[in-house]
């Protein structure tokens, strides 16, 4: 039966989590998926090894970078 082995159109999502309320969220990894549903399922399945109190995903293309390593702030 025909299906595409990898999705035709995908987005990258960064995964953020923390183990305690007092900790800041930190990036724990990323997933690639065609939509938010699958990105949530993949993030939870892939990064479930810790007892996180919070996990969230952000589409990478929604992040606005001000500057990066080695770039000038101004």
């Amino acid at each position, binding site marked *: *039966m*025909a*299906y*595409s*082995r*990898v*999705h035709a159109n995908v987005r990258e999502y960064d995964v953020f989590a923390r183990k305690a309320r007092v900790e800041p969220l930190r990036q724990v990894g990323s*997933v*690639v*998926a*065609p*939509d938010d*549903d*699958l990105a*949530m*399922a*993949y993030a*939870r*399945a*892939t990064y*479930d090894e810790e007892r996180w109190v919070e996990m969230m995903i952000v589409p990478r293309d929604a992040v606005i970078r001000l500057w990066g390593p080695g770039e000038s702030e101004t």
Partner: protein
Amino acid sequence: MRDAEWCIAAPSLEADIAAAAMGLDDIGHSRVLYGSLRELGTADGPDEGAYSNVPYLDRSWTDWTQFVAANAVLDSAFSIMIEALVNGNVEVLRSRLKKMLQEERYHYLHGRSWMREAKAAGAIEQAWREALEWFGPEGADVDGFKREGKLAYSVVDLRRMLQERVGERFPDPAIDWTRWDGARRRTVPGGIDRATLDMLQGLAEKRYMPASG
């Protein structure tokens, strides 16, 4: 168990990991359910010799669309039944099964997304039919439990909720309820193969255990 067979065969690495994780979740769910059965003091206790499953699980899946249909339809049917128990009046089940629903939410998201992609219509129709057989006919045990308050939903409710969750409209399959086995909740004979059953019961692993003493 069938999920786990796809942990190195799914269409992407993320799907491999998700298949393994969902398989582990479901094994955990069966342990909770068996534990609850013991606590409820069922008449005979869980009888491993009378293992039952929907026909969909009798044999290993050979196509990813079968995984998707099981994930989207049968897993959803299971979740809805668990929801009916969580909202019913049996206290042990109300408190114990809630975490399952949280985990099953991610199984649903996985199934729903892949269903949009995988063109699994044939497999979904079969899974749909078997889910309805698993719920059983109207006026049978499930509706009896609904009247007693043990289950929050009737057979008609369960069918409607599954339809809403799957999102597609299917014609009602012609199910011959005279052939329905009320204990095994299916209309066709057969069952899971011996090797898989041994693995499920831990018999296969026992061969690798060091001799005690």
